């Protein structure tokens, strides 16, 4: 694994915006005093006349974005997930979601991989919050390639979109040339017959690692990447439930309301098979280096392997 390229998806976001700014000369980007951290600094430098810093006022920033969109503008609003989805939730819900305005929300620093800043900044609730808003598309990319593709795809969605990016550099797992991003389509990364690991974000790479280990131990694990949490790809999930009879979900988010819940929502109404959720277990994070935290909270290939083995007996 020495030659693995690692990159934080917040960097991918920033680079994609610069590219997008070339194609769309009317694209606007807003930020709330986090231009460098959310990586929109590049857009600011390239297109200063199309960049607006709203100051430390996320609620107003979302309202400004709504007003711009209502006046026909294309706009991305950037902040940390904690403030974009958390602090500004009700403004996103009422000023963007309810009128279904095509505001794109770029939320960086999601999950506990924020690391040293600690629990106040480690947002593990954003997917749950955003996916309850009617008409909101929620995307959680797994690497650099997918993150950039998601930013481009979001531009073509006639409605609000929430895209989640991370601070931690993570392996690039998708192939640039062969990669095709489809909103709402899960990606079958590895076929398998005994169990399906459904992962999102930085857990996709861990799920692939886990599947390799499981194979060596005689368990055939299917791996599906769900980058779009909403609208979720029901078909690929139902098929996996039917064919493998056991689903393990893995996400860097609370086990309440995130990918695991979304997957369970699909199968309970169709093919009720056991769904075992790996995520942050209804607790706050704490300070520490991101890799250590991910390990501690069980967001690792190692824990996926352990969980799969412990769950095999649930299969009927």
């Amino acid at each position, binding site marked *: 694994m020495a030659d693995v390229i690692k990159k934080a998806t917040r960097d991918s976001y920033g680079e994609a915006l610069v590219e997008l700014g070339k194609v769309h000369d009317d694209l*606007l980007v807003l930020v709330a005093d986090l231009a460098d951290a959310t990586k929109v600094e590049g857009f600011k430098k390239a297109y200063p006349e*199309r960049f*607006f810093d*709203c*100051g430390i*006022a996320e*609620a*107003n920033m*979302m*309202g*400004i*974005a*709504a*007003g*711009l*969109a*209502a*006046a*026909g*503008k294309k706009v991305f609003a950037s902040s940390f997930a904690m403030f974009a989805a958390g602090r500004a939730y*009700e*403004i996103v819900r*009422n*000023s963007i979601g*309810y*009128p*279904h305005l095509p505001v794109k929300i770029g939320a960086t620093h999601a999950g506990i991989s924020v690391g040293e800043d600690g629990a106040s900044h480690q947002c593990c609730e954003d997917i749950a919050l955003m996916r309850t808003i009617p008409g909101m598309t929620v995307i959680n990319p797994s690497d650099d390639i997918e993150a950039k593709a998601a930013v481009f795809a979001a531009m073509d969605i006639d409605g609000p979109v929430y895209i989640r990016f991370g601070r931690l550099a993570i392996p690039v797992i998708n192939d640039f040339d062969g990669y095709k991003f489809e909103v709402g389509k899960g990606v079958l990364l590895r076929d398998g017959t005994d169990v399906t690991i459904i992962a999102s974000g930085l857990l996709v790479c861990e799920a692939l690692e886990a599947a390799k280990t499981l194979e060596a131990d005689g368990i055939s694990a299917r791996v599906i990447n769900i980058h779009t949490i909403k609208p979720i790809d029901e078909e690929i999930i139902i098929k996996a439930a039917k064919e493998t009879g056991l689903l393990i979900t893995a996400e860097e988010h609370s086990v309440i309301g995130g990918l695991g819940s979304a997957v369970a929502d699909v199968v309970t109404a169709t093919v009720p098979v056991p769904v075992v959720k790996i995520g942050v277990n209804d607790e706050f994070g704490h300070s520490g280096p991101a890799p250590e935290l991910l390990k501690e909270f069980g967001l690792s290939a190692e824990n996926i392997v352990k969980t799969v083995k412990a769950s095999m007996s649930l299969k009927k």
Partner: protein
Amino acid sequence: MDSELKKRLQQQAAKIRMNIIDAVYSAKSGHPGGSLSIADTLTYLYFAKMHVDPKNPKMKERDRFVLSKGHCAPGLYSTLAERGFFDVSELKKLRQVGAMLQGHPDMKHTPGVDMSTGSLGQGISAAAGMALAGKIDSAGYKVYTILGDGELEEGQVWEAAMFAGHNKLDNLVAIIDNNGLQIDGKLSDVCSPMPITDKFAAFGWHVITMNAHDFDSIEKAFDEAEKIQYQPVAIVQTSVKGKGVSFMENNAGWHGKAPNAEQYEQAMTELKTAAEALN
């Protein structure tokens, strides 16, 4: 103000007030008090000031209006109906299942509504966003928004005030409806946002005061607002909550309550009498 125009606006406002009472009475709920306090201002905006076309409500170069105090939707709906954006008969269906007119403004389904509002403090941000879009496009349109005085207790209002001041949005006019009352009582007893004028001035706004029920004063204020450059404008209007209906006037109890049959008759009689006196 030209006396003919004034008379026409007074007559129009009287009709809008009757429509407000009619709509809220039909819905058996809603917010008459604050709707009546902004009725004259809405009349002036839609019948003497704003560049709008009821036949082309999404016209690009139109002036925009955001009712930041969205609960006063009956006031806005009555005005839009009178201006021809939709049929006056819609007003009697307010708040009912299947109706176009929602409890709070819904831009997706109501012609003439430029922004969905209802959650206080948010409309002014959206209005500032629209004003910014106008600046980016070098468009000539103005964005008007009406806020309640109690709404100023929402922190987001001041985030928006800071943003508009910083970005010198001189195409934005925020009207603050200072009737002095909110749901729980007098602003001065609940959690006073006073002094309003000084606060907006401190955020870099040009501040004008006006009498919300005197068209001469209203015209003077908006004429002044028109001339201001490089600053957003706040017009603080002194108004009477429930204006035009004696038992609703200056009574916080009529913030969000519909009249019963007897009260409805009395309100309509009072408003009709006042309207006839104009002839």
